[in-house]
């Protein structure tokens, strides 16, 4: 399913190098985002390595999942792809059927155009919407700011179209956000993100604040909008059962590093990295007779200001040996589209 939208790509993509397949919408190489956190003049400068040397390809038309605990750097990585976090080192490229951009060195006009092509859906629909604007104005704002439409009639037309796709009616457009429930507000947020017709959308914990009965509705909406508008999603979440259901490929982050990347079914049926295995087994099962079977992980994620040497996960890993505290493992292919960064994947992998 996922790759079909990009099959008509032709020879004008010669600029791309051989390692990025033509269907790739985002291609990152050795991407790092470091934030300075003090030190200076006489002491050594300190950096928080939020994202550290990440290689990632997001195929066009995919529903790409990014999971990890809080502090793993998943939000920062998503924002780096949107040029909303400063990129310290590395390369990031963006390709769609019209343009190719080097995201690290974007000109002013290019950045403006990129803002239209890449959008973000926020986590908290209560905080993301201005209480003083009507829903129509909230959804129309990106069009006006980016000067995409030229008249009020045209703006209204575009707003109405996207609103109806997000199941909001004309009556809704006249009201203020406080009159809406959480699920309706999230639909307004989605309409606002999609009104400028983006190609790439980062959904950062977009269902985490919603009740379960509504969550399924929003997930189904995201999926149908994807088919309808040909979108590519980067879906950032800590909820693995949601990710299992909606995404087609998953990357797992730990302390700023990718530890595993695999097609969703592969990852959930045969997780290769011990961290992924621990995450999966920590999901509370709905079966009351299946209690306490989880493989429990000791301790907590270390501070990214003082990451442990070697494999970042070795301090909590049940399989850690000497080499793990000395050498940092790199992502290596272990199967079809399946990559794991672990010294011992051969002995422990495959679920």
């Amino acid at each position, binding site marked *: 399913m996922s790759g079909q939208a990009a099959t008509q790509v032709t020879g004008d993509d010669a600029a791309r190098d051989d390692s990025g397949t033509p269907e790739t919408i985002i291609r990152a190489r050795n991407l790092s985002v470091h934030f300075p956190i003090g030190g200076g003049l006489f002491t050594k400068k300190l950096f928080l390595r939020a994202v550290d040397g990440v290689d990632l390809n997001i195929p066009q038309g995919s529903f790409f999942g990014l999971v990890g605990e809080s502090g793993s750097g998943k939000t920062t990585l998503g924002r780096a792809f949107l040029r909303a976090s400063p990129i310290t080192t590395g390369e990031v490229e963006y390709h769609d059927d019209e343009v190719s951009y080097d995201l690290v060195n974007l000109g002013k006009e290019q950045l403006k155009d990129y803002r239209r092509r890449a959008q973000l859906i926020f986590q908290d629909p209560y905080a993301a919407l201005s209480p003083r604007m009507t829903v129509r104005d909230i959804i129309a704002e990106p069009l006006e700011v980016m000067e995409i439409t030229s008249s009020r009639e045209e703006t209204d037309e575009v707003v109405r179209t996207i609103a109806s796709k997000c199941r909001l009616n004309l009556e809704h457009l006249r009201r203020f956000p406080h009159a809406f*429930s959480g699920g309706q507000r999230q639909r307004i947020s989605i309409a606002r993100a999609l009104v400028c017709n983006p190609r790439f959308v980062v959904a950062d914990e977009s269902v985490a604040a919603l009740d379960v009965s509504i969550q399924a509705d929003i997930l189904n909406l995201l999926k149908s909008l994807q088919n309808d508008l040909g979108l590519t999603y980067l879906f950032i979440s800590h909820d693995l059962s949601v990710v299992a*259901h909606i995404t087609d490929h998953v990357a797992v982050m730990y302390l700023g590093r990718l530890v595993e990347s695999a097609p969703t079914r592969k990852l959930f049926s045969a997780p290769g990295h011990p961290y992924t295995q621990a995450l999966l087994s*920590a*999901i509370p099962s709905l079966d009351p007779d299946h209690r306490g079977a989880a493989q429990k992980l000791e301790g907590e994620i270390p501070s990214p200001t003082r990451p442990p040497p070697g494999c970042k996960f070795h301090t909590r890993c049940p399989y850690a040996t000497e080499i793990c505290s000395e050498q940092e493992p790199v992502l290596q292919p272990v199967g079809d589209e399946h990559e794991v960064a672990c010294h011992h994947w051969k002995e422990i992998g495959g679920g």
Partner: protein
Amino acid sequence: MSLLKVDNLTLQFDTDEGRILAVEDVSFEVNPGEILGLVGESGSGKSVTAKSVMQLNPENAVYDPGSKITLNLDSGSVDILSLKKAKDMEIVRGGAVSMIFQEPMASFAPAITIGAQMVEQLLLHKEISQQEAARVSVEMLERVGISDAEHRFNQYAFELSGGMRQRAMIAMALSTSPRLLIADEPTTALDVTIQAQVIDLMKDLVAEYGMGIIFITHDLGVIAQTADRVAVMYLGRLAEQGSVRDVIQRPAHPYTRGLLNALPKLENLDAPLTPVPGDIPSPLERPSGCVFHTRCSMSEPRCQQAVPSMVDVYEGHRAACFVTTAQEPGA
């Protein structure tokens, strides 16, 4: 004898927009050593119900005269809603009943060390010396799995990581050996790996101290892993109540069934996610009859007119639905 007995709890809030019914006719019991899961979406009244047990609802809460909350302690029964003065509530709040919250940072004073806060409440509730209180507190911190407890004792809440803070809060809540613990979404803000640790810890503590727990959450997976019995709430009313196995494996109320269908299940990734249609109505516009009828796929005309009562589906498993429990309106 049950530890806590809530009978016909009905509670309204006096607001500028009129009286808002938050909890209506809710009855349940908690036995010593039992974990009762209280499940519901935001606005279902689960937190308000739990806070009534400690009279922690704001001043504008109006309890219906028929409501009764009884706490059965070794020293005798306490009729909680009849207590009027804060002084009288002392044996309940922090003494016989403790509460832990979703956001541990909000439970600790930021400018007082964790140790000082733990000692303060022990001195308030127990007749022990300062040194003794400090010793008990450090022991309790060790018991919940905090390493280097004596050092942590002198730290402030902001110096601890999220999981550590949650443990410290549990230690503080348990140091006065309460008979009943109310846990309001205690794992919701935690990562899954830490959540698994906290769930294990709470189960161990129940086994060790034999207290009763009201575990409030919206996560049915967490409930399946911890609770003995479950009560499902919707818009201030109980929809269903029973053993965790019964409620999850053969739910009788359409709302419980809807919740379970809306959950993504790892065992079956191909199963479509079925949302419960519509949105939760505003408490200002409470539907007539069965409060769930506006979103219910099995709704019949009688559901809009009369309120179904809780009736037995199986032994110890009760649900409030005309259609699935074959009860007649007015019966």
